[in-house]
């Protein structure tokens, strides 16, 4: 087993012990924030830049693995928020492949640009799949599954009755939106993308996204009324 581990490190340049420390450092920050806002994300762009100028296979493997450990959870949420399993898992694996294959071609210089690039890849893969299935709409997570996430988010005793009512109400509201508004609101509030990030992903203007979300909230008010 030990020999296998040494072989693994030699071949991939990836040390499991180092990776554990790396992950602890990367995720040692407030929970519940989108992962890309966390302090460890500053390492991400360094890894991507290093990958760009690296030609050896073992080094590339080691770097790609460390990059994937940082992005997998957020990207998976992005895909699973739009498509239902088991298709979602297949698309997610396709997204990982596409990110890995094109890592050397990424031109940006900031973590934000890199995330935008990853989301565009994910978005395109989701669209390809939807087009292939000729079903021109997203398949968001069902309300029960979303509520399960809320239930798992904190210890049940820490969620007050008022909080529960508030959250359940917001969730019902989110689920009642038409797919168009629902997608914008999901990306902004649940996935945590800001207007600029949504604009880049959807090839819209910052103002267009801002106004769209404003109008969708206006629509939500009418649902409340």
């Amino acid at each position, binding site marked *: 087993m030990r020999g296998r581990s040494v072989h693994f490190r030699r071949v*991939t340049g990836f040390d499991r012990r180092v990776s554990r420390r790396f992950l602890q450092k990367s995720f040692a920050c407030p*929970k*519940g*924030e*989108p992962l890309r806002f966390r302090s460890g994300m500053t390492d991400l762009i360094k890894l991507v830049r290093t990958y760009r100028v690296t030609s050896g*296979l073992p080094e*590339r*493997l080691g770097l*790609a*693995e460390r990059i*994937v*450990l940082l992005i*997998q*959870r957020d990207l*998976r*949420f992005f895909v699973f928020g739009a498509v239902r399993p088991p298709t979602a898992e297949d698309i997610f*694996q396709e997204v*990982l*492949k*596409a*990110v*890995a*294959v094109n*890592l*050397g071609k990424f031109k940006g210089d900031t973590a934000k640009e890199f995330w935008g690039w990853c989301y565009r890849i994910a978005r395109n893969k989701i669209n390809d799949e939807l087009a292939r299935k000729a079903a021109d709409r997203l398949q968001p997570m069902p309300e029960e599954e*979303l509520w*399960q*996430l*809320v*239930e*798992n*988010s*904190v210890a049940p005793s820490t969620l007050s009755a008022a909080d529960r009512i*508030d*959250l359940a*109400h*917001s*969730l019902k*509201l*989110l689920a009642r939106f038409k797919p168009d508004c629902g997608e914008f*609101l999901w990306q*902004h*509030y*649940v*996935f*945590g993308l*800001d207007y600029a990030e949504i604009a880049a992903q959807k090839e819209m203007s*910052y*103002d267009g996204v*801002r*106004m769209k979300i*404003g*109008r969708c*909230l*206006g629509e*939500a*008010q009418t649902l*409340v009324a």
Partner: protein
Amino acid sequence: MAKPDQKKFNVLSPDGFPISREPFASQKEAEAAIPKWCERYQEQGYYSTADRERIPVKELPNHVPIVPEGETVTQQADLDGKFKKLGHHLRLGWEQQPIDTEKNLATVRGAVREQWQKEREEKLAKPPAPTPDKTKEQEPPEPERD
């Protein structure tokens, strides 16, 4: 650094939404953020509200109130806060979900290997860059004129 019990402030856009993800630690910080936010609309020349009302960029600073955190001006901002809270809980819940890291790493290893192999093959298939022809005879120097 802000004390934990210190009041925080939001700057609200003309549509009633906070202009920043997190509230500002002091009123001074909030005030300082306004010109920077208004700059976004400098090129366009106006801010367009959700009701399609256009506010000239020069007047924009007068339409962005600073309010203590928790005080919302519009129902939309209230909804904005509720959705943000929901999003926070959904992300927390998502983080508890198991993730098959080994499977994801295996996918990526395969893709990186494949790409590396492809690049290597392309490199080998590429004809070598033409080198300057050393065998080419040099032209004889022009005869000197008398």
